[in-house]
């Protein structure tokens, strides 16, 4: 079977998952393990006046006072005006969100640990809760961090001159948009199991993370250990989405306790903890003014963006990555003449903002795509035509946009037109009319975006992060039996990297996928990698594996040629062997010669051997840009407010498709999450800052019955700047759905004069808008 780049093959990891044999943190068995439960804050904002440990259980309950030698999570940034928040593993003096950890309790079982946690009494003196960005910015607002003077982590200002755009504009569109707070809901929540290994003199932490090497750095810095004294192992991880790319306070306090009591301790996040303490993403507000001419050409854009970043800055991505991404990505795939944008990263009494699949772009794409449709309506043109008019044209590539993003390759309008063709937009108005005659309301919507992937050193350095990715390392080796082993410090947590990086090795070594063993996620066994985020895994780890495999192939040819008694340039690699015509030396024979019978090799043999570690980054640091257009046809039922997606197409271009099957899976999964953002998911807070959506009965995720049959189309414009022309694709499909679906809803309801600008577009929001419109019609002007 062809296993190299481009092969559409099932994933290596599926067998163990389908048999229930995977090893998640919760599956790991170490004798003597105890379980932990956290005492969490019941209030959004309060001073802690006392914590009372239950009598007799003092040695099994730990608070910040016990952990004086544990440093808080501290995320510095070089951005001017940025304010640092100390994020203690266990609350110190004050609690700043519902669900914040106050104490950690340990017992032989989780139920007993929860009994203990319940018996801990915490005396709290309530402070005024800050639940929205408006409240946070009000002059008399209570302060999250007493020494700050205000509630702003950061403001940025992209100053742009809009004078000419304003003067020329004949159409001015002003809109306010709002996106809900979400919880990412990986199937497996967070989890960590730590113990002190006396033989290795190491803290060993099994943790459900996307970034094991970063967690090692974080743990060692906060615990005051040398990095060599910490080993982090990410076992099977059941989804990450960004939720697991930051240092968790629970990881820290648990590691501290495991070392103190000298016993393995585990904590497994439950869904309620996730939906409260993990409600940490997506919440934005926008105020946008767009200046356009009569044709719908966008001349300039003026924007204010507020990000509700919660109480603390997460490490290492800071509370400000979101706003930096939002301000930088709002123009997206469009060619703009002028742009001004101010962003506000606002502290509130909610969990600290964490980047989620798409990072800021689902919000900016929603805002931009609704604005595009508003312009189209204002000038009376087809939304597709207005988009194509404004998109960066294929001939302009490579193209540097108004915020300095370097779009490396592709044809954005072509993708938009291809999506339109797939969904047959040309005949849609006739179809819409026919439906209307039956009393049905259907609408069409488009959404186009670019996805910066694998952005590297300079980009992250410009965001001022405390930790900047550089070269990605990987190791590829031939085992003594002649099979291939790949080791990467990146991680596979559902996105299939375990399979796709093996495919890259197969590309050079012409082996079967089953012959490639992949080890990832263990700092004790893998070369350094900053990990899996920012759609970088395939580009970076894939590139590093490619370089290492290429070098291994070169060395194999030298040894193989020797065994075949010919020159290295006379041989090639075929089917797990070095061949010269019909003569061949199998990998098994070469491995046997190198490891077990070096006497078969020449005296001047290359001693570098058959284990190759290489470092890689693409030719550019600015990232390679995937792009896509999503198009949706929906039906809205004015009797129930319910939106049904009748058709959904995605036309995307992510460069070389390493495994088209996995790529399709990434598109389905991402789009499903985007539909959650568009129609269902919302963490609701009351005025006291209490989350009201703390179970899955209240926080609604889309299920199979709510999802459409996605139809996919592809272009394959190779990036000139990355190995094999690969671009990242992990995040993309989550970005566009809200724009496409809400545009379609607004199109369906245009007869009612309804325009939704807030997501999720729940039946309640749709009905409220319809009833408002009805009331207006009843009242004569």
């Amino acid at each position, binding site marked *: 079977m062809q296993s190299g780049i481009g092969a559409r093959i099932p994933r290596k990891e599926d067998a163990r998952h389908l048999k229930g044999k995977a090893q998640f943190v919760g599956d790991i068995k170490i004798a003597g393990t105890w379980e932990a439960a956290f005492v969490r804050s019941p209030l959004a904002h309060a001073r802690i006046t006392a914590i009372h440990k239950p009598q007799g259980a003092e040695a099994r309950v730990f608070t910040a006072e016990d952990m004086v030698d544990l440093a808080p999570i501290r995320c510095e940034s070089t951005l001017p005006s940025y304010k640092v928040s100390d994020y203690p593993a266990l609350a110190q003096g004050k609690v700043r969100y519902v669900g914040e950890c106050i104490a950690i309790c340990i017992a032989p079982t989780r139920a007993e640990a*929860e009994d203990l946690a*319940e018996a801990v009494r915490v005396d709290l003196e309530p402070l005024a809760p800050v639940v929205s960005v408006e409240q946070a910015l009000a002059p008399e607002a209570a302060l999250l961090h007493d020494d700050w003077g205000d509630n702003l982590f950061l403001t940025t200002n992209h100053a742009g001159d809009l004078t000419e755009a304003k003067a020329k504009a004949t159409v001015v569109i002003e809109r306010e948009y709002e996106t809900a707070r979400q919880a990412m809901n990986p199937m497996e929540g967070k989890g960590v199991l730590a113990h002190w290994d006396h033989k290795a003199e190491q803290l060993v932490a099994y943790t459900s993370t996307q970034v094991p090497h970063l967690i090692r750095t974080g743990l060692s810095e906060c615990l005051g250990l040398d990095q060599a004294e910490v080993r982090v192992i990410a076992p099977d991880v059941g989804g990450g989405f960004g939720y697991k790319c930051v240092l968790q306070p629970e990881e820290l306090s648990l590691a501290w306790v495991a070392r103190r009591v000298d016993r393995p301790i585990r904590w497994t996040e*439950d869904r309620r903890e996730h939906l409260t303490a993990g409600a940490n993403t997506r919440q934005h507000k926008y105020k946008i003014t767009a200046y356009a001419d009569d044709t719908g050409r966008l001349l300039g854009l003026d924007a204010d963006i507020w990000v509700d970043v919660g109480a603390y800055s997460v490490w290492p991505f800071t509370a400000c990555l979101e706003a930096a991404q939002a301000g930088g990505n709002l123009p997206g795939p469009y060619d703009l003449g002028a742009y001004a944008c101010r962003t506000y990263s606002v502290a509130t009494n909610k969990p600290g903002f964490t980047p989620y699949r798409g990072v800021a772009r689902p919000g900016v794409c929603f805002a931009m795509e609704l604005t595009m449709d508003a312009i189209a309506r204002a000038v009376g043109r087809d939304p597709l035509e207005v988009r194509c008019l404004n998109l960066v044209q294929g001939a302009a590539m490579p193209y540097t946009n108004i915020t300095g993003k370097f779009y490396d390759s592709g044809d954005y309008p072509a993708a938009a037109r291809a999506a339109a063709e797939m969904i047959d937009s040309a005949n849609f108005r006739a179809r819409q009319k026919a439906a209307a005659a039956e009393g049905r309301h259907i609408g069409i919507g488009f959404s186009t975006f670019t996805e910066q992937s694998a952005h590297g050193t300079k980009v992250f350095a410009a965001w001022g992060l405390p930790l900047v990715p550089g070269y990605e390392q990987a190791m590829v080796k031939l085992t003594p039996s002649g099979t291939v082993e790949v080791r990467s410090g990146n991680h596979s947590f559902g996105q299939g990297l375990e399979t796709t990086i093996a495919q890259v090795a197969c590309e050079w070594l012409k082996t079967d996928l089953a012959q490639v063993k992949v080890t990832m996620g263990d700092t004790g066994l893998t070369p350094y990698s900053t990990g899996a985020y920012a759609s970088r895994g395939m580009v970076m780890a894939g590139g590093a594996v490619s370089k290492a495999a290429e070098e291994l192939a070169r060395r194999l040819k030298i040894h193989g040629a020797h065994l075949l008694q010919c020159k290295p340039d006379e041989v090639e690699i075929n089917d797990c062997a070095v061949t010269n015509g019909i003569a061949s030396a199998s990998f098994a024979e070469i491995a046997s010669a190198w490891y077990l019978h070096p006497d078969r090799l020449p005296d001047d043999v290359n001693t570098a051997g058959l284990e190759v570690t290489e470092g890689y980054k693409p030719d550019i640091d600015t990232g390679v840009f995937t792009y896509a257009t999503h198009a949706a046809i929906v039906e809205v039922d004015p009797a129930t407010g*319910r939106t049904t997606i009748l058709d959904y197409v995605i036309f995307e271009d992510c460069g070389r498709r390493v495994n088209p099957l996995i790529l399709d899976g990434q598109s389905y999964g991402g789009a499903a999450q985007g539909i959650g953002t568009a129609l269902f998911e919302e963490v609701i807070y009351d005025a006291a800052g209490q989350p009201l959506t703390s179970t899955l009965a209240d926080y609604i995720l889309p299920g199979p019955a*709510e999802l459409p049959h996605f139809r996919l189309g592809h272009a394959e414009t190779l990036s000139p700047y990355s190995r094999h022309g690969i671009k990242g694709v992990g995040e993309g499909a989550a970005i566009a759905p809200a724009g496409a679906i809400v545009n379609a809803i607004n199109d369906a309801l245009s007869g009612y004069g309804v325009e939704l600008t807030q997501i999720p577009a729940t*039946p309640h929001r749709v009905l409220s808008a319809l*009833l408002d419109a009805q009331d207006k019609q009843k009242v004569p002007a």
Partner: protein
Amino acid sequence: MKPAPFTHDRPDTAAAVASALAGDGAKIIAGGQSLGPMMNLRLARPAHLVGLTALPGMTEITETGGAIHVGAGVTHARIEDGDSPVTLPPMLRHVARGIAYRAVRNKGTIGGSLAHADPAADWVTTLTALDATLHLRGRESARQVPMRDFMLGAYRTALAPQEFIETVTLRTSMREALWGYDKICRKVGEFADAMAALVLVPGEGYARLVVGATGGRPLLLPDLAAQIARTAQHPGPDVLRAALAEHLPEADRVKLHLLTTALDRAIAKVIPA
């Protein structure tokens, strides 16, 4: 999300159940599909759970003298599947199929659902519409309560302390009922935001129109039911909305709109508008 400590037993006589329930903090558990989540959230903290599945008859379905008796411990899944020695009214099977997900239906019971009395649950509305009678068993007594009088409000029922539901009885004529049922959920398997049921048994002159998921006990609309039976006409959404607004003055406009839709659609399944 682990429950507080509790003990558990499964008595096999009604008397033993009653005396077990007399204990401090004792509570019945049936399928555990409502009680379980509440215990895991520690919103319910029974000290002792009394399982009913060992009681004779609890999981049986029988027919005597023009009545179908469904044991309180019969699961939604069995009703959905028609896994019964006697034919069940088609409406029961239809409604069972729409409750939650199959995993929940495999464990959840008809008696547990009624005793739990969630306003948005399917059985409280359906069995009110089908004029069911509940057989309740107490320590020394047994009594019958018509379903329409059983649910007093949200999560409140006519059950006395130490009393439990033994069987749910329906007239066999409900097999021939004309019925319409509609519920509006955000997602397949979620609890409903609105529901309604219309049941007509022309031979008996029986007509009942019930609205569920109102936030309280199922709402009966007897005048409208009689009008529908008499005229065989769909009253139309405006009339329905007005009736609902009159009976549910607290309902906000969105809720009223959804309830109107459910009612409109339930009726339309019997009498097209």
